[in-house]
């Protein structure tokens, strides 16, 4: 395994992060092929952001996933669980072999993360829009207890159709939650097609700004840009930070990239072989 660093609390270099991201993409594909399918699109688009978080940004302890003073991460786009599981496994939260049970009876690992079963998962999610609300609650709790740990949450762009996301957005700026960072995986596709055709989100960054957030737009596959943005939070003291990460849905497998109908995909043997080659 071409992995430079599996100890997340030692900050990985950009090169190491890139290698880890490549490895996580291979793990995701491997896990989904083994399970007979998965949310390829959204799991591959989010990998670079997750890698930066778990190998450079988050102050977490894989040996002690419930450590009180850890940074929190809420995967609000819960169907991105595949990417999260592989990231957590590579970061040492649990043995990667456990991922071969994905979706099987009584597995800890299903399509969406279960915080009671997955070491390192800070919230159970899967119903879109709810995770960011929980992240707001965590950030308020952290402020109440005068803690220095931070809260991060990753949303889908389609997920931002949900009204409750904007209730959370309002609450976060109202309560001046500068300990909260949300990242939106702006791959421009949801389940029925391009977000701008299904239900337009633009002007997207301006919406968040209007809700009181400090916003930065980055290339969500450029590790340098991801790290720079995440290391710069809070962008403005007293305000929650939002990173619009422009990404490609299905990133890394050419015939899945930018295909709304590959939001969930099962690969046939030839496709599986091609995917493996492309990710190698």
């Amino acid at each position, binding site marked *: 395994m071409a992995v430079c660093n599996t100890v997340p609390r030692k900050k990985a270099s950009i090169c190491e992060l890139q290698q880890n991201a490549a490895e996580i993409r291979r793990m995701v594909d491997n896990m989904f092929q083994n399970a007979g399918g998965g949310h390829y699109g959204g799991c591959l688009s989010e990998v670079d952001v997750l890698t930066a978080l778990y190998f450079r940004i988050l102050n977490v302890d894989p040996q002690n996933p419930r450590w009180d003073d850890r940074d929190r991460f809420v995967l609000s786009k819960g169907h991105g669980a595949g990417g999260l599981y592989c990231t957590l496994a590579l970061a040492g939260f649990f043995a990667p072999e456990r991922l071969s049970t994905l979706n099987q*009876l*009584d*597995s800890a690992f299903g399509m969406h993360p*279960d915080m009671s079963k997955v070491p390192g998962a800070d919230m159970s999610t*899967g*119903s879109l829009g709810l995770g960011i609300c929980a992240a707001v609650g965590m950030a308020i709790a952290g402020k109440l207890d005068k803690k220095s740990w931070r809260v991060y949450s990753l949303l889908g762009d389609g997920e931002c*159709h*949900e009204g409750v996301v904007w209730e959370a957005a309002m609450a976060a700026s109202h309560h001046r939650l500068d300990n909260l960072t949300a990242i939106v995986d702006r791959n421009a596709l*949801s*389940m029925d097609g391009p977000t701008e055709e299904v239900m337009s989100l633009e002007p997207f960054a301006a919406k968040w700004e209007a809700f009181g957030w400090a916003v930065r737009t980055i290339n969500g596959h450029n590790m340098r840009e991801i790290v720079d943005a995440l290391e710069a939070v809070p962008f403005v003291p007293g305000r929650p930070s939002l990173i619009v990460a422009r990404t490609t849905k299905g990133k890394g497998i050419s015939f899945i990239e930018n295909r709304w109908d590959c939001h969930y995909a099962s690969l046939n043997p030839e496709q599986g072989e091609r995917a493996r080659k492309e990710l190698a």
Partner: protein
Amino acid sequence: MGAIDMELYRKLGTRDALGATLAEIGGEYPELVVLAADCLASVRGKAFAAKFPERAINFGIAEADMMMAAAGMATCGKIPVACTFGFLASLRAGEMIRSGICYPKLNVKIAATSSGLAMGDGGTTHHIIEDIAVLRSFANLTILAPCDGVATTKAVRAAIEFPGPVYLRLGRGGEPNVYKDDFDFEIGKAVTLREGSDVTIIAVGAVILRALEAADILAKKGVSARVIDMITLKPIDRDIILKAARETKLIVTAEDHNILGGLGGAVAEVLSEEPSVPLRRVGIKDTFCSIGPTDELMDKYGLSGKAIAKEVLDYT
């Protein structure tokens, strides 16, 4: 209504039958509109959208908004069919169904897919084993739960004809055919799938096949089991329940739902009002279910044909 190609619907599961039916009847009902929350493809609504592009309306991932918009459209004479996953229809948009649709008694149809444990690998967020309990308590709501494609096309057609709020509790698709013959579907009438004189099994949706399997097991043990499909969950068919109570010695209900407040609860309510026979309820024992393939989960949580038969044998 034109002749229905039943051969087609025998091959389709509930979800595909929903989409095919909407596309088929869209021409007959110019006021029919199909609403989806980023799940038009998932609910097989793209065929309707291809034929009637202006009448297929996507709300994005915003189920609550979609449900209230359906209410608003109904006040203007439209017949909205609001489609989404069961957990989102009944829970996320549950208040909209109650206060926005049932309270003013608006002519909205709610097509809810992947009910029960149909999204087994989706985990608890995507299971919906609480919908019957919640929705049954909404006044003015009719709840239909067809178990296969034939029953679905009939239920969808009946729902569109029916003036008032209707909730269709559908599966994820791919369900084997149960209704081999044309049957008369009528809202409020349960269907006796198999005659029997010793005991009665009342089941619904994905559990129907398992109830039939239980009846097979029981037949081998010399127990004659009647099997009833409670295809209309509300208003419940009191007559068929009371008839079973008169004619058989035991009633067992079976459902892919929390044992609290679902089909078993509804049957218990009917039986409590009349001199009655013993009732046993088979359902998920007030627990969230783990992750897994639907069939394996149903077996694990006591919904196998064997487990239903055992429930009968333990009490006969």
